């Protein structure tokens, strides 16, 4: 009888221990994971009690802020898919979502400040997020795109900061609730952030890879000339130069300038597929930039087997190869600076005037080789004398490569990938305009407009008109 009670008491104590273990699990071990589930109503309530931080450009121009409890978006519309929105029905997206921790005042220093604010009866505040973007340049890019479907993205080659980004068409984030139906059904995909999510065949801009490869492995004498009869038959493909034009005897520099397909198919043969893929990898093209917002992964066809593309196709940026503009901008920056850097958006977060954290490039890898300085000169020549002429701005010494990418959706996509100034590069740019025809005619002028805007706002120190 009394033994039974002792056993029951043991069971009861066991029960209490199990409850304490369960409590420890829910409150401590799984606590922060569960507390941050979006279904937790405490999160929304917390936000109401707090003044959400602002998002600003690098110069302190306001992109969005909360006024009278309502989120107001004032930046250029071409940033809308990047910045994202906060909406009751559509939720949060873009950088508004990615920088939640900062904007909701969850950085340790900001929490301390907010604790003090509450002691004095003031409303807690989120931190302000300063982006690396410059709105002046973004607006110039938006004007240059002029409503055509396309993307512009530019990075500071020395740091990886994304200085300019524009997508077109875009939308008005202030009206996302009302416009949602129309936007989500629009065939021109205004919700798509083309610079980061758009996947395009790179066309002739991919000749950079072949050029880097042959220069790196010293497979070419710089004075060596190749004969271009206008077309070449290789591995069952017939590859023609633009409009079937025969370029005659040309060297690498001229081949880049006139974007000679025949020469580059020959050079790629000399490079070989393995080294071609190794160059893609070395230049970081297989590594998706982690930007906190959706970024598409570059589609590099498998080396061999099902779905692979032949080397001649790859050499001229066709086949099943698809790249994002941001990735091409990173490539251009790597050519310009000799270092592959992951790009980033966060310049710094601030509580008032106090800087709480600074952004930086997540990874970088030196690829500096003598090859690149040769290539920089050749790319300068391609703009000064070749297909990229329309990108050249007086006194700026732009370097770059155009591309005209065939695709199954109509006219070719127009590309320009380059940097400036060619002797001491600071800004690398990728421009793509969908179904706009030749890169030299459609994309290069957009690049010029952006480079000029960047110069006007002081990004090319020491360069004068």
């Amino acid at each position, binding site marked *: 009888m009394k033994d039974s009670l002792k056993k029951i*008491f043991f069971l009861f104590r066991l029960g209490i221990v199990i409850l304490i273990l369960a409590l420890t699990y829910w409150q401590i071990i799984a*606590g922060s994971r*569960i507390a941050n589930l979006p279904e937790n109503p405490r999160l929304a309530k917390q936000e109401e009690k707090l003044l959400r931080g602002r998002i600003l450009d690098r110069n302190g121009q306001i992109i969005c802020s909360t006024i009278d409890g309502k989120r107001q978006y004032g930046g250029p519309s071409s940033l809308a898919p990047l910045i994202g929105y906060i909406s009751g029905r559509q939720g949060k997206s873009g950088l508004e979502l990615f920088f939640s921790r900062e904007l909701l005042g969850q950085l340790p220093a900001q929490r301390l400040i907010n604790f003090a604010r*509450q002691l004095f009866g003031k409303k807690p505040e989120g931190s302000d997020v300063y982006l690396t973007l410059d709105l002046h340049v973004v607006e110039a890019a938006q004007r240059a795109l002029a409503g055509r479907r396309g993307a512009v993205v530019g990075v500071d080659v020395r740091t990886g900061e994304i200085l300019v980004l524009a997508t077109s068409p875009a939308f008005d984030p202030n009206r996302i609730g009302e416009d949602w139906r129309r936007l989500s059904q629009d065939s021109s995909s205004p919700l798509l952030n083309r610079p980061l999510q758009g996947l395009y065949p790179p066309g002739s801009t991919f000749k950079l890879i072949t050029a880097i490869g042959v220069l790196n492995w010293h497979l070419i004498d710089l004075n060596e000339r190749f004969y271009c009869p206008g077309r070449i038959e290789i591995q069952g493909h017939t590859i023609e130069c633009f409009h079937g034009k025969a370029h005659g005897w040309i060297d690498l520099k001229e081949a880049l300038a006139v974007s000679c397909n025949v020469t580059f198919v020959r050079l790629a043969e000399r490079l070989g597929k393995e080294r071609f893929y190794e160059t893609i990898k070395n230049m970081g093209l297989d590594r998706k930039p982690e930007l906190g917002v959706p970024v598409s992964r570059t589609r590099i066809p498998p080396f061999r087997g099902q779905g692979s593309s032949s080397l001649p196709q790859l050499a001229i940026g066709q086949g099943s190869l698809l790249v994002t503009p941001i990735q091409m901008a990173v490539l251009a920056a790597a050519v310009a600076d000799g270092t592959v850097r992951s790009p980033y958006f966060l310049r710094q977060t601030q509580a008032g005037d106090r800087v709480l954290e600074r952004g930086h490039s997540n990874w970088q890898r030196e690829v500096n080789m003598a090859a690149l300085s040769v290539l920089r000169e050749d790319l300068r020549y391609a703009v000064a004398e070749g297909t990229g002429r329309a990108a050249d701005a007086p006194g700026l010494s732009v370097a770059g490569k155009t591309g005209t990418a065939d695709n199954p959706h109509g006219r070719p996509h127009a590309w320009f990938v380059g940097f400036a100034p060619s002797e001491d590069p600071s800004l690398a740019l990728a421009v793509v305009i969908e179904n706009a025809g030749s890169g030299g005619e459609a994309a290069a002028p957009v690049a010029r407009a952006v480079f000029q805007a960047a110069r006007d706002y002081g990004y090319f120190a020491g360069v004068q008109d």
Partner: protein
Amino acid sequence: MWVSLGGAALLGIAVVNVTLHRPLLEMLYGPLLLLAFALGAFLLGQKRDKVLLAATFFLTTVGFIEIYRLKPELAAKQLLWIALGILVMLIASALRSYRWIERYKYLLGTAGLALLACTILFGREVGGAKAWLRVGIWQFEPVEIVKVLLVLFLAGYLQENVSAKPFGKLPLSWAAWGPVLLMWGLSILLLFLQRDLGAALLLTGIFTAMLYLATGQGLFVGTSIFFTGLTVLASTFIFAHVRTRIAIWLNPWDKLSGNGYQIGQALFALAAGGFSGRGLAAGDPGFVPAAHTDFIFVAIAEELGLLGAVSILAAFLFLVARGWQLAMEKNDRLGFLLVSGLVCIFAIQALIIIGGAIKVIPLTGITLPFVSYGGSSLITNYLILGLILGINNCRPADQRDY
């Protein structure tokens, strides 16, 4: 000592967190109440068991503070229930003898069943369970009284029918087994008809525990668990609501906006609490449905954290341990069965509702003794406490030993 320690910890947390959110005057309510209850425990404890009183008063105080914070409009009523409860406890603890329990056991048992039957016939449905009975203007949950009547009946019946030597033999006859099984079967059936699963589980637990206490045979525990399991299994096929309960228990996460809402909100509240809690009146336990009744433990866990929650568990451990210690000291079988059986009610009820609220077992709605809001619950639990104190003070019921 642990009460003062727990109280001090509670106060410290409360003061720090409340500073930011509440006017100065309201900060004093909690401490003043604790003080008042501590004083009460001291005064009433002069002639009664101090540990039992301290533990229950601690639970009642913390519960009251949380109820006041969650539903200020219910605080006055709860205070009235507490006062009535303490009065009932004082009266019950003045018990002189408990021989009558043995004599009137069948009357007590039948009264319990009759109450349950009344609830089914005339009961009102609240929150999916038809568990409320209305008499005049006063509504109450009969099952609260039934659980007491059940323990009294079982204690009386088992002490008469289980032979003393050899210990623990319940004769294998319908005369001996009939009433026990009948009572058991009937109450379970009634409760299933009422859909009051928590109470059904509680009564099953009490039956099993008391049979084991009286006979010392693990066979009863095994059989009971087996049949309970079988009943639950069978009921999942018959009753959709039992099926949902178990499905929610297994995985509430994909049903957060539907059936799993309550348990999901409870887990969010726990997660928000963390180690030291969000502070009294600084959390949002109001998101949890029934936060002031069945889920009060979760509300406390959010605002006072793991510390506060464990101190509640500790109070129950002290309450139950002390109660069973008193039972051990009884030299007569009836006294032993009565005290240990009554304490069982607290023990099982606390495990069922806390376990259910923090997803250790499937959730079945039932109050947390002394802590939850509710007149029937509070008064009955204080009655049980009074009976324990009273029986403890009485001389043995008879000379039969065991």
